[in-house]
């Protein structure tokens, strides 16, 4: 049994995929971080002080964790969702009544989205109160603020998709605020966002595209830069 495992681990196929051995020595542990795409953002060694939970409260990391949950559940939800009126609403009902674990998926997606907004905000506060925005990390703070706005936009664009009264009027109230912008700019922006003067099918499609493609891509790019700069500025 152990022999067979050894042979697999030593096989060329295995070694072509994992260029390091099992992390059982400090060397191979370092290699694990070094050669692994997902771990390479981390240094091979970290200060013991900085991995204490209360040092960062793990808020940024958990926000990212929620983002992953949202991507996974979101992708699954997309399989059952049509961004059209009124099918969008009936698809919610179908999720509830006929899709296996459909309600559960939607709940996960919904609560994770709300939690992410809250956690990102808390993360921002933590960074401020620990003074972590100070040079040389000024620009990463700016990216963080943008990411906070992006998180809210992600949540907000998703809010319309179930096409119930809550969605419709939540979005109507929000987009009415845009109209307050002076010189007719607000009206133009609102029209562009909704694809019309009121929240209708065009708005649903636009919000769907924003929610499922545009804003996530922006968020992923910004997150990559954000994490990379954390690492470059000496963080974990």
């Amino acid at each position, binding site marked *: 049994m152990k022999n067979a495992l050894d042979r697999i681990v030593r096989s060329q196929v295995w070694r072509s995929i994992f260029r390091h051995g099992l992390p059982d020595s400090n060397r191979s542990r370092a290699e694990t971080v070094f050669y692994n795409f997902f771990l390479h953002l981390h240094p091979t060694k970290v200060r013991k002080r900085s991995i204490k939970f209360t040092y960062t409260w793990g808020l940024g990391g958990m926000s990212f964790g929620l983002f992953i949950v949202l991507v996974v559940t979101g992708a699954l939800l997309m399989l059952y969702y049509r961004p059209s009126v009124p099918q969008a609403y009936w698809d919610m009902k179908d999720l509830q009544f006929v899709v296996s674990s459909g309600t559960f998926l939607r709940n996960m997606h919904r609560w994770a989205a709300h939690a992410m*907004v809250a956690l990102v905000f808390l993360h921002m506060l933590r960074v401020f109160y620990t003074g972590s925005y100070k040079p040389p990390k000024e620009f990463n703070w700016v990216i963080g603020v943008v990411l906070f706005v992006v998180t809210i936009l992600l949540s907000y664009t998703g809010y319309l998709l179930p096409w119930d009264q809550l969605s419709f009027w939540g979005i109507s109230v929000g987009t009415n605020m845009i109209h307050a912008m002076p010189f007719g700019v607000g009206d133009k922006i609102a029209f562009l966002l909704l694809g019309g003067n009121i929240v209708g099918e065009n708005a649903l499609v636009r919000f769907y595209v924003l929610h499922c493609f545009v804003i996530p891509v922006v968020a992923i790019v910004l997150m990559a830069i954000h994490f990379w700069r954390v690492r470059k500025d000496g963080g974990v």
Partner: protein
Amino acid sequence: MAKDFNVERNSDAKKVPKRIAFIKDRTRARVRQEEEEMVMTVPNLVAKEIIAFEILIIVLVMVSLFVDAPLEWIANPEHTPNPAKAPWYFLGLQELLHYFPPIVGGVILPGLVVVALIIIPYVRINLKTDGMWKDYPQKTLIGFLVFVGGVTVVLAMFHVYAMLVPTLLMSALMLVPYFVRREGGVIGWLGTRPLSWWVMTWFVVMAVVLTTIGTLFRGPEWRWTWPWNGIY
């Protein structure tokens, strides 16, 4: 012994830019470098990350199993619910809109907040770590009173008591260390808070208060309702 130099003790690098270290005979010259204890990322950090992620998901799953995401009536453009509310994270803004004209509550204030957040690291005030009353306490007090007075007038003018009351409470808290100079304790701790800390805290308190009011205390016609009489 006549001195031809002046020794000033100060840890503030701006006031005393050059430093001289006197090394007496009794102590050996050596730099005490703090040796940070380092650990391997794998498994120490990665294990913690995974555990944190797992616990996060466990909590999320439990919530999702027991609390269903809301799904109301199908959208009906002809019937506005009363009150029509945005998602909770915008209810602070919606509460502002209740007090201020749309251009102020919907555009200027949120715009200012975002801009203010972005420029935080580029403003010198935020780099200072001293308590706000440390330097030029009189000047600071005058500026402070003028600012708070202005804010009070504006808020009172628009009847924004939801913001005015916490603002005045916080201002009182800020003034305590000015009048009661004490090291240590709560007052001492407050005294060491820099201005940027106060501003951010004020912003957070405002955001929390307004969002809470908008979420829990507002009913039909945006009238004040107690949460136990129904959350709208």
